[in-house]
């Protein structure tokens, strides 16, 4: 039986009360509430405010921020902190995220629980530093080489930046994966009311420490139920080895052993796919008897709500909204159920290559048309464009 220990937030990190702050600051406060006590980063627009605030706040809470020489260093530095026992994150945007890919794979392979925050801006390359996009969604899932699974979370307001980054840290600990917290410039720089609850109302997962003694402990022996191994930290008296090479349950390299490699890589994927139902998080609005379904995430889902209102007001079209909060893994069964009832699914997102829509198409398998509604970013959809797509699909 997998043992997950839930506790409540350390009051030191919790700024209880109503604040008027932007998504970046709210994400920082959420991370502190979740127990994050280490961040390494290299500042980049539009994500800089997250670590700026972290650097200012962390001395008061007890912990450390290091500004590293670049994103490559940041993304491995934080993993050192995790193995020393802390909860840790790094924060970046597109160009920095590209540089971090190597070490996202390292975190996946070594099962290092951590959070990567990407405040997305327009790309490719340096693109539009001060303007939003959702163009890194496939990169966040598949960007590092080799097979692995991860978890992607997408908030649509500063309040959700606070709340859902706590989920990100909790899921990272439960499944021992790097969790991708996929914000965008609009949400990151948007200022709204953020209500931070009392520490005792914030649920936080503790690290999955082993209860085995040195000598008995196998660092990569999975829990039989959820396939996640238990952890130790440096200095606790255990001998263990952390390597990006294919390794056996002792953590020793076994880079030429086909069977060990097969078992390891399958487990890295299956600990997410087999537990997906415990990870899913989504929100539905008016999906009971809708003809058209808008399926979206993050800022695009929020903007789409205005398009949906317009379609209801002007044409009386029945439109439902399905908002993915955890974007990967996706609640496939529920999407299929809805696809069997609706006339069409429209997927607005701030990229033009249907990065999430193509995944919906794969799930829906022709049960209904899936209409990608891409926007190249550097702005968000005009609600009128979403309205027009609804009217067109309802014809």
């Amino acid at each position, binding site marked *: 039986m997998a043992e997950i220990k839930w506790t409540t937030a350390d009051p030191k990190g919790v700024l209880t009360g*109503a604040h008027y702050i932007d998504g970046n600051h709210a994400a920082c406060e959420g991370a502190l509430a979740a127990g994050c006590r280490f961040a390494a980063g290299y500042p980049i627009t539009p994500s800089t405010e997250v670590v700026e605030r972290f650097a200012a706040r962390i001395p008061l809470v007890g912990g450390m921020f290091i500004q590293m020489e670049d994103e490559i260093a940041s993304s491995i530095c934080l993993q050192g902190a995790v193995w020393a026992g802390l909860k840790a994150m790094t924060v970046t945007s597109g160009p920095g995220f590209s540089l971090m890919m190597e070490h996202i794979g390292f975190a996946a392979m070594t099962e290092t629980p951590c959070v990567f925050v990407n405040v997305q801006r327009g790309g490719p390359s340096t693109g539009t*530093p001060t303007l939003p996009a959702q163009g890194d969604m496939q990169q966040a899932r598949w960007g590092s080489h080799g097979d692995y699974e991860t978890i992607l979370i997408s908030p649509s307001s500063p309040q959700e930046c606070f709340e859902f980054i706590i989920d990100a840290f909790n899921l990272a600990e439960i499944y021992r994966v790097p969790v991708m917290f996929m914000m965008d410039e*609009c949400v990151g720089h948007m*200022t*709204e*009311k953020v209500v931070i609850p009392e520490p005792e109302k914030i649920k936080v997962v503790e690290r999955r420490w082993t209860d085995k003694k040195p000598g008995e402990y196998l660092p990569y022996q999975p829990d039989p139920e959820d396939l996640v191994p238990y952890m130790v930290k440096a200095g606790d008296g255990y001998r263990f080895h952390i390597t990006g090479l294919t390794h056996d349950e002792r953590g020793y390299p076994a880079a030429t052993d086909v069977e060990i490699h097969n078992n390891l890589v399958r487990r890295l994927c299956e600990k997410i796919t087999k537990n997906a139902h415990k990870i899913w998080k989504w929100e539905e609005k008016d999906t009971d008897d809708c003809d058209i379904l808008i399926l979206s995430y993050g800022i695009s889902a929020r*903007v789409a*709500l205005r398009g949906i209102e317009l379609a209801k007001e002007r044409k009386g079209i029945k439109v439902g909204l399905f908002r993915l909060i955890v974007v990967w893994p996706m609640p496939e069964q529920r999407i299929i159920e809805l696809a069997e009832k609706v006339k069409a699914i429209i997927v607005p997102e701030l990229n033009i290559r249907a990065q999430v829509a193509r995944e919906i198409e794969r799930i829906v398998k022709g049960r209904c048309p899936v209409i990608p509604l891409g926007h190249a970013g550097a702005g968000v959809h005009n609600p009128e464009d979403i309205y027009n797509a609804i009217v067109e699909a309802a014809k």
Partner: protein
Amino acid sequence: MAADRVEIRLAGFGGQGIIMMGYVIGKAYSIFEGYEATLTQSFGPEARGGACSAQVVLSKDKVLYPYVVQPDIFVAMSQEAFTKYYPTLKKDGILIIEEELVDLSGVDITQKLFKIPATRFAEEKVGRRLTLNIVMCGFFTAVTGLISRDAMRKAVEDTVPSGTEELNLKAFDVGYEYGQQVLGK
């Protein structure tokens, strides 16, 4: 301004405190009045002197679309900002200008218009030119009547650097009282 959604654009030079004005207005309405307010900003890479704009959407309910499309209220603090954004102001909207920085000659203004020499007032009546944005906040509060004076003063106090609260509240009152005078109250 009975509509559920009120869109406000504040624009001028970087360095005039435009974003802070938007922040004070948003905070007053959301934290101290208890409604919803979304502030977004557009900025270039410059820290000073570039064009700067803050957009605030006030709503009784959750703000869905976060950006301003056609403002109900436009506060222009520079000629460049006025020229760039005036065409999007609603026909029945409110235009507020820093009258010594915005020249309206040759433009047929159809909206309600309120003018204040905020920078000069900040210098002469408050004694700190830097407080021009808070003078404008006071004026905005009086002439629009959207947010209570009390909520705005609390937001000012809560926002400005510590040690400058008194100075900034004075600036707010200078703007507010001038606004009342203009309204004939």
